[in-house]
């Protein structure tokens, strides 16, 4: 099992060009998450959480500052290099699930293994194992439309794990879920984190969920307000 990747961000600034001028989304962010760490990221809407996640996940090259994940310096990567990094190192979980409606749960998860050109026989085996691991071993042929929100997010988590990532980035994974499903999804994430040792960064608006992480980061207007570290285990009390 691939070990988690350290996150090391220094002086990260990122702005979006818009009609009138430029909107600063991140402004001098410094951040360290240890390998195998479990961090939560909070902040009001528009604080820059998604932008930070997008940069850490290689969706967008950083404009200024240094971003190193594991041994990859993201500021040096572009295009296909970033795609390879996303494929091999990162697993994404989205608020909107991001499943493809025409594909079954199995095919959605398998798609990620297809993109890494995993040999055909290995694909099916790994996909089925992951769907079992997220508790959907009996729902493999169902399309997203035939699954509940919580189940869809479990499929998405299975897909995020398909290429044995060293970093899981979850952008408000419980934002579209009722309380019970949300708890189930968070507990699943925590369990997988514990089992697989990958680094996890979860964006959330929910204080209770944030409080369960061993490291809590607060972001406001593109800056880190506060970062608190708990002893690991403290945050994992079941609530």
């Amino acid at each position, binding site marked *: 099992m691939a070990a988690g990747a350290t996150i090391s961000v220094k002086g990260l600034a990122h702005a979006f060009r818009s009609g009138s001028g430029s909107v600063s989304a991140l402004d001098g962010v410094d951040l360290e998450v240890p390998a195998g760490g479990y961090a939560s990221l909070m902040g009001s809407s528009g604080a820059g959480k998604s932008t930070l996640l997008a940069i850490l996940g290689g*969706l967008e090259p950083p404009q200024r500052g240094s971003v190193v994940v594991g041994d990859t310096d993201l500021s040096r990567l572009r295009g296909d290099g970033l795609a390879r990094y996303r494929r091999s190192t990162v697993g994404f979980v989205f608020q909107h699930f991001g499943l493809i409606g025409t594909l079954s749960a199995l095919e959605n998860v398998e798609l990620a293994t297809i993109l890494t050109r995993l040999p055909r026989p290995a694909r099916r085996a790994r996909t089925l194992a992951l769907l079992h691991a997220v508790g959907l071993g009996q729902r493999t042929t169902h399309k997203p439309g035939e699954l509940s929100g919580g189940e869809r997010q479990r499929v998405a988590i299975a897909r995020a794990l398909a290429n044995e990532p060293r970093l899981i980035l979850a952008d408000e994974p419980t934002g579209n879920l009722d309380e019970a499903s949300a708890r189930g999804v968070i507990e699943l994430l925590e369990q997988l984190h514990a089992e697989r040792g990958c680094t996890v960064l979860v964006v959330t608006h929910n204080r209770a969920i944030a409080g369960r992480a061993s490291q809590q980061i607060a972001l406001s207007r593109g800056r880190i307000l506060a970062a608190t570290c708990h002893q690991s285990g403290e945050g994992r009390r079941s609530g």
Partner: protein
Amino acid sequence: MSPKDAFALAVKEVIRRLGRSVLTLLAVALAACLLTALVLISRTAETEVLRQLAKGGPLASIKVAAAAPDPSQLANDNARPGSPRDLGPQAARAIGRLPDVASVVPVITSRMIFVPSAGAPGAGRPEPSYFFDTAVGADLRDPSLLPISVLAGRLPAPGSLTEVAVTPGYLERLRLDPAEPEKVLGAELEMGPPRVFDELEEQTFRALWQRTEIVGVVAQEAAPGGIVTSIEHTRRAQRWSAASDGDTGELELSNSPYTGLVVVADGLDRIGKVRRQITDIGYSTSAPENLIASVQRYLNVVEIVLTAIGSIALVIACLGIANALLAAVRERRREIGVLKAIGARDRDILFVFLIEASLLGALGGVLGSLGGWAAASAVGIVVNSYLTAQGLLGLHLGPSWGVLLLGVLGSTLLASVAGAVPALKAARLPAREAVSES
């Protein structure tokens, strides 16, 4: 992502937007149908018009007359011949040895008296009950070398003295319906070359009578004349008439062994050269080369215009593909972002959309080309029944794989070009769309 996986994903996308896919597919199919039908029809029209011009014979045929050439007439399709000049086997062999000459068939014509037998269709109606006409005798062993096309029945057997074929002119003379040429088949026709005797200030004819059966109705351009026989038949007739004495003006007697030759060149473009060489040997020639060339030019223009109309329709249909895919890209910005987030490269996205576009183009092309062929065949059947009703040769519309392939490849290619714009747009979408709010 392997091409196979990209293809599978593209197929799923086509099925996902089934309604829109079917509509765009239909547009491409209709346009491809129009294109192939128009090209097939114009191609067929071209070959058929040329076939009619050549009266079923080879297009590159040249008629050599038993006359010296008039050098000023070389550029003329129907050159006015110079003074008569004997044309025999020796000259025929010399012409046959010329480069670019594929075949030489001798022709002998003979003026004869014809008496349609009583009881035969049309017999006895017009007065008088006999008439003069020219019999055209040719070596019939290989009819494909002659500008003769069979409208009904068959050609006389080579060497036969008892079988003849008649032309539509004969039917007209007997007031028979040219739309039903087969009615005359099997009728008897008595014919004979006349010999003129000058007896006591009075001219009399004696004919070498021969009873024959009409075995075919043909259109022919080998030499002017209403009846086609074997060359053996007209040679015998020629010898009989040649022994005439006195004034034989009406018999158009000639001492030349052959009345003419039908020469086939190795191609339409060689006709001019072969005609010049035959002129050098010393004989007058005529060939429909200028007529064929100008007809071909006009037909080419028609073909270009029709092909352009079909192509424009296909381009419009492919713009429909581009439009549908652009809408799909707009609707699926976030999904494309997600695909990138889980590791798809720009070119993977590009391929999926390109495959989707060319899949619609290829499917539409296959359906449309087959439909176009069916449409052209239907038109062919209608035109054929009209042509046969007019007593003309029916046309033949074979399966033209080249045109069908053109329809399929053309629409596939155009569709992928049209798909390139949305595909590039999708491929260039920023991956951060995956975490966008909308």
